[in-house]
């Protein structure tokens, strides 16, 4: 059973280290607006702000170029991405390029150093709230695999909320992603998306 919780609402009578909660006087309180699942004891945020973690896959846009093969990336409103490339690396990037990378290092929780860059070409970039990213991926990537299969597109998802889509049917994929963003909190989403994409064919 899921129910709404609000900032400051007590969710557990005992102290418990859950995401998006804090402990006060041996009780657990919510810090955000979300849904609390009583059976699994987990708090699902309805909106959240991305906090970088090691090995997070992110998508960014090159915003400036340094001298020795380093690039600055815009990945979030306040977290800056830095990409360091080797001189032997043949790939050159230009301002405005969309790049996917993995977080290698986090500096003072404000700057993330990226590795394993991959240039994303000829696609379209969109942004959804980071709270909906796990839903867009689905359990063991089931949702995203279904989406790419049924629409015949290529989709890259960044933990920071950016989603990149390429392919002829990208408008249908965008429609589906917006629907996931809107309906992520209603159970049975995977089936609805599947129905939506199959029936239109």
């Amino acid at each position, binding site marked *: 059973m899921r129910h709404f919780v609000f900032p400051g609402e007590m969710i557990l009578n005992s102290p418990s280290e859950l995401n998006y909660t*804090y402990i006060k006087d041996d009780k657990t309180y919510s810090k955000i607006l979300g849904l609390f699942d009583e059976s699994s004891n987990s708090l699902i945020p309805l*909106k959240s*702000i991305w906090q970088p973690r090691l090995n997070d896959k992110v998508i960014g846009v090159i915003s400036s170029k340094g001298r020795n093969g380093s690039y600055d990336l815009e990945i979030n409103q*306040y977290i800056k991405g830095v990409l360091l490339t080797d001189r032997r690396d043949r790939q050159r990037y230009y301002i405005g390029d969309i790049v996917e990378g993995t977080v290698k290092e986090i500096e003072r*929780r*404000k700057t993330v150093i990226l590795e394993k860059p991959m240039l994303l070409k000829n696609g379209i970039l969109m942004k959804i709230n980071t709270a909906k990213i796990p839903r867009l991926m689905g359990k063991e990537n089931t949702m995203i695999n279904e989406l790419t299969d049924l629409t015949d597109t290529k989709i890259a998802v960044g933990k920071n909320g950016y989603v990149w889509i390429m392919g002829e049917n990208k408008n249908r994929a965008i429609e589906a992603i917006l629907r996931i963003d809107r309906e992520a*909190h*209603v159970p*049975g989403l995977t089936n609805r998306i599947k129905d939506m994409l199959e029936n239109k064919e």
Partner: protein
Amino acid sequence: MINLASSLNKPELIVNGKRIDGRDFNELRPLKIEAGVLKNADGSAYEEWGDNKVLVAVYGPKEAPRYLADPNKAVIKAKYSMASFSGLNGHGRSNPSRREIEISKVTSDVFSNVVDLAQFPGSEIDIDIEILQSDGGTRAAGITAASVALANAGIPMKDLVYAVSAARIEDKVSIDVNMIEDNYSDADIPFAISPRNNDVLLLQFDGGVTREQMKEAENMVIEAGKTISKIQKDALKKSYEEVSKQYEEK
């Protein structure tokens, strides 16, 4: 600008045991809040409280300018402003007035106590409070709406704060005063409360009350706060519930 309020033209504030607009002493004006009204803001809320109309937008956390940035935590920057058409007096005609600067500061202080600032070092969270129409108690209305807008933006915070003003009208303690009562009342005390443990986050005071009246005002505010908190929560979950309802009917 002529100050319309003076002791010479003071109206009867209590008529037949009721207040000037027919309310009881502990009765709130009708309150309506809607969350997520602005598409381009990270979080927003629109509130109508009596004749007050307030629009709040929240942006951030975003990179703070260097002079403001704190390497250990986020900085809250609230900006309260009254639209030039919001009241009878000449508001919003030039730079922020002394009063607007004051209210911006106290609002920033209220939210600095509840928002989890340590999570976003070096950043800034902007709260823009725009008073579209004013009828007394706008700082309380602004804080109540800003709280909803922050939760709507997904910013982690310890509590959903509400604010309401108390006043002494002659010998009666009352809450949520309107413009006329505000101008002529004998004491004006805006409160901001953190409902989890009833911590007082803002208390401003102008006029005079006895110790007992102060205690009575606090109790009245906390009692009325239950209603305000419920309206805030309903506003936050409304848009999500509407989507759920579409599927429940099918």
